């Protein structure tokens, strides 16, 4: 859902950039606090991983493809604010080096994928995990739902921006975008749950959001398979 330049009215693109910039600025300040020694290497490799999976388009219905977003995955791994930074770095690299997503549209793309996708859905998942204290399976289900929601809400934001810009009538673009992204979101949900399942099995201590029965770091040592 990377919006290229030319699709959005200049004022809409500028208006979208304002909350995006504010969120990123705050995320940078929070990172000074939240970025503990353990998370420092994770920020770089999570960004690399999100970039990589965003290159992998998979076919969905009838001559259309989707690619993974990675926003929910980043949010569960690093927390919502650092995940917003991850998405921003990836989107900026994509726009500047690969002409994937526009430059004047970068604010809108960061808003849709970083703020709505990673930050808002991430905050929602954090609240839900804290309130519901899910076990492992429910946790992965929640992450899958969050992943699907991040894709859908990002598509919603994109549609609204296109509608307000006068590029396309909202009544035409909204159902079309939500329809195709509902399918893409399923792929996102499956891959997110699988990736988090793997991290849960290997290094549950590294997750910012985690299920109630995740083995804490100290207890992992010396336990046999399946810890």
């Amino acid at each position, binding site marked *: *859902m*990377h*919006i*290229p*330049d*030319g*699709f959005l009215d200049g004022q809409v693109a500028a208006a979208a950039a304002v909350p995006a910039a504010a969120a990123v600025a705050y995320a*940078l300040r929070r990172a*000074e*606090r939240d*970025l503990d*020694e*353990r*998370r*420092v*290497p*994770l*920020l*770089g*490799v*999570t*960004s*690399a*991983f999100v970039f*990589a999976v965003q*290159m*992998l*388009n*998979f*076919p*969905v219905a009838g*001559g*259309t*493809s*989707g*690619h993974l977003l990675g926003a929910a995955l980043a949010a569960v791994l690093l927390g919502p604010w650092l995940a917003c*930074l991850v998405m921003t*770095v*990836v989107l900026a*690299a994509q*726009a*500047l*080096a*690969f*002409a*994937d997503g*526009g*430059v004047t549209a970068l604010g809108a793309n960061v808003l849709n994928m970083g703020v709505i996708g990673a930050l808002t859905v991430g905050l929602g998942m954090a609240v839900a995990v804290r309130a519901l204290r899910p076990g492992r399976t429910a946790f992965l289900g929640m992450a899958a739902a969050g992943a699907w929601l991040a894709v859908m809400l990002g598509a919603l934001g994109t549609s609204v921006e*296109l509608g307000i810009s006068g*590029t*396309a009538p909202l009544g035409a*673009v909204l159902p*079309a*975008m939500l329809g*195709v*992204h509902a399918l*893409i979101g399923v792929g996102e949900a499956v891959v997110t749950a699988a990736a988090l399942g793997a991290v849960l099995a290997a*290094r549950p*201590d*590294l997750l910012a959001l985690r299920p109630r029965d995740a083995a804490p770091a100290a207890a992992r040592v010396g336990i046999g398979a399946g810890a």
Partner: protein
Amino acid sequence: MDRRSTRAFAAVVLALAVALAMGLSPLASPSPDGLERVAADTGFAAGERTHAVQRSAPAPDYAFPGIGDARLATAVSGFVGTLAVFAAAHGLALVLRRRRRPASP
């Protein structure tokens, strides 16, 4: 957990990312993505413009320059791009860490 084992995990994730980007991106579906498809169907696809900055983008549409074969060019973009994004994000993390206020718990 100690720094060394977190680095080991991070190295695995990075290696996986590079492998995916290099190995699978040439096989990725060439069909238009969701937005492109909607743009084509609804009729606003022609409005797309390329920003001046992007006209000198090194690898537009993930085609690494100087490589004839399209799939190889994509694979190389995957390799270089993944490592470049890692470098940028890791550099950012190091800068942010250095600015942490001392004596934070």
